[in-house]
């Protein structure tokens, strides 16, 4: 049973079993509680290490009305500070860039700081009281944790360690080699929905038959496994189930009623951008070339994927072919979710857009392993304030088109709460329970 807000604004258990109170998505008061008790105390994926590759590189991570400055202070150290000058509070840097002079200088009254946050100069310090200590005039540092090439931040000095927070994920995800991945693309959109609605759409397979019925031709949406991994979740196979392709049982088709090669070709066409061009072309070749006797199209496709990864020159010696074919969707609590394959991943990170409970920023990160001899540069970050101004492909367009309806419908006086599917929307329910661990402690 999850928490809701009483009329007095107190956090209380809901009296309705199996209902997620809609206030959690639409009320400003609940949103404010998240800003006060969740975001300042939870580990958050702020960026990737390759976004701040050189000493002095910085990146501004924004959550709600809080701006965090992530910077590489020496080749091996990434630090994070509240993005505010101890003099008059001025924000020190915006967006991404490099402190080319090797120091952080406030634009307003020119106080200067080392990259490690210590104060270098308080201009005319002799005017200030002698009681003002060096510690007072340093940048306000917050905790940084690193795993898999990701840079996490946590504003709570007393928080659990990142290792403890991630729980079983690092061990389970080790074969996917996140640390070897680099950006292929980085796109951000504004969606007209709560940050959780924007996340939920990628954290359950229940909506596929309603929103993306055209995917059922090659997706068995009924057979996905859902489960909690500590505070986090997964949806899919995670190495336990052979990567297969078949239509949804909802179509009522038997084994002889479809051609695996057709399903593969359609899947690759449909998901387009998620697959490298070379892989797409080879799968389309299956149409022309008959498969060897006793080989299924999926066998041939799997062999192709393994071969392509090996061809990149990446050392895969520690992985079995089976591990190389794993795929799963992982939800990194609180706000990152996405499908993970050996060699690549697409992660969706959703954040509140300012302090508006009805608007979210969604970042789409496509990461992939790069060949050892490739010097991959950080890709361009593209921003689309109006998602509808771009064609994202049918599947994503369908998801985005739902957003405004979801948010508007939940705000209706007639909406009494969310009746989530206990199995297929397990991950969403579990996310709410973990949010409550933060809100109630």
């Amino acid at each position, binding site marked *: 049973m999850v928490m809701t807000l009483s009329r007095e604004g107190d956090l209380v258990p809901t009296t309705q079993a199996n209902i997620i109170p809609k206030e959690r998505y639409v009320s400003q008061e609940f949103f404010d509680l998240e800003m006060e008790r969740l975001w300042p105390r939870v580990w958050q994926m702020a960026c990737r290490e390759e976004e701040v590759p050189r000493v002095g590189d910085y990146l501004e991570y924004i959550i709600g009305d809080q701006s965090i400055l992530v910077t590489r202070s020496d080749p091996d150290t990434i630090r994070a500070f509240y993005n505010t000058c101890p003099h008059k509070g001025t924000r020190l840097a915006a967006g991404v860039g490099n402190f080319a002079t090797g120091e952080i200088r406030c634009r307003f009254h020119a106080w200067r700081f080392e990259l490690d946050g210590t104060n270098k100069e308080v201009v005319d310090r002799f005017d200030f009281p002698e009681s003002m200590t060096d510690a007072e005039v340093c940048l306000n540092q917050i905790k940084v944790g690193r795993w898999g090439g990701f840079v996490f931040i946590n504003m709570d000095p007393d928080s659990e360690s990142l290792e403890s927070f991630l729980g079983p994920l690092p061990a389970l995800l080790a074969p996917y080699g996140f640390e070897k991945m680099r950006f292929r693309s980085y796109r951000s959109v504004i969606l007209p929905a709560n940050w959780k609605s924007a996340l939920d759409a990628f954290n359950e397979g229940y909506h596929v*038959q309603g929103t993306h*019925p*055209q995917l*059922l*031709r090659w997706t068995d949406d009924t057979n996905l496994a859902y489960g909690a991994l500590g505070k986090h979740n997964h949806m899919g196979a995670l190495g336990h189930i052979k990567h297969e392709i078949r239509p*949804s049982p*909802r*179509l*009522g*088709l*038997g084994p*002889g*009623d*479809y051609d695996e*090669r*057709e399903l593969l*070709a*359609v899947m690759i*066409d449909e998901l387009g951008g998620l697959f490298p061009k070379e892989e797409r072309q080879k799968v*389309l070749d299956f*149409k022309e070339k008959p498969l060897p006797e006793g080989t299924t199209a999926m066998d041939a496709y799997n062999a192709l994927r393994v071969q392509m990864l090996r061809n990149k020159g990446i050392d895969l010696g520690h992985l079995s072919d089976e591990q190389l074919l794993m795929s799963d969707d992982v939800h990194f609590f609180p706000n990152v979710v996405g499908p993970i394959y050996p060699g690549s991943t697409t992660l969706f990170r959703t954040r509140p857009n300012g302090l508006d409970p009805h608007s979210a920023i969604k970042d789409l990160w496509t990461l992939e392993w790069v060949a050892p001899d490739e010097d991959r540069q950080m890709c361009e970050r593209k921003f689309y304030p109006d998602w509808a101004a771009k064609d994202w492909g*049918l599947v994503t367009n369908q998801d985005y088109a739902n957003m405004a309806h979801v948010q508007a419908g939940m705000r209706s006086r007639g909406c009494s709460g969310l009746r989530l599917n206990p199995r297929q929307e397990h991950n969403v329910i579990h996310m709410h329970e973990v949010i409550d661990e933060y809100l109630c402690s």
Partner: protein
Amino acid sequence: MHIEPSGLNVDVDVEEGRSVMAEAERQGLFWPTVCHGLAECHTCFFEVIEGEENLLPPNALEATALKDFSGRSWYEGKVIRLACQTRVRGDVTVRKPGVRPAS
């Protein structure tokens, strides 16, 4: 209308103006669909083998849905139509695996 590979036939009553799928269902056949006639799931699509001239042109809904097939390499060179929208005015042979007598 003749349906491969099942070899089943559907009498298409031109006067009634029902869609291929609606007519097949009325005559006791199972036709794969998820959205049951909204042209959203694209599951009921079939390939025209013979008699293309006897199909009425796609309506607006079907024309939009067919874009999902026109860019797909697998269907290049094939005539694809949606059974839930297409009307027929004469003999036609189509390929639609999965069509069978409804249980």
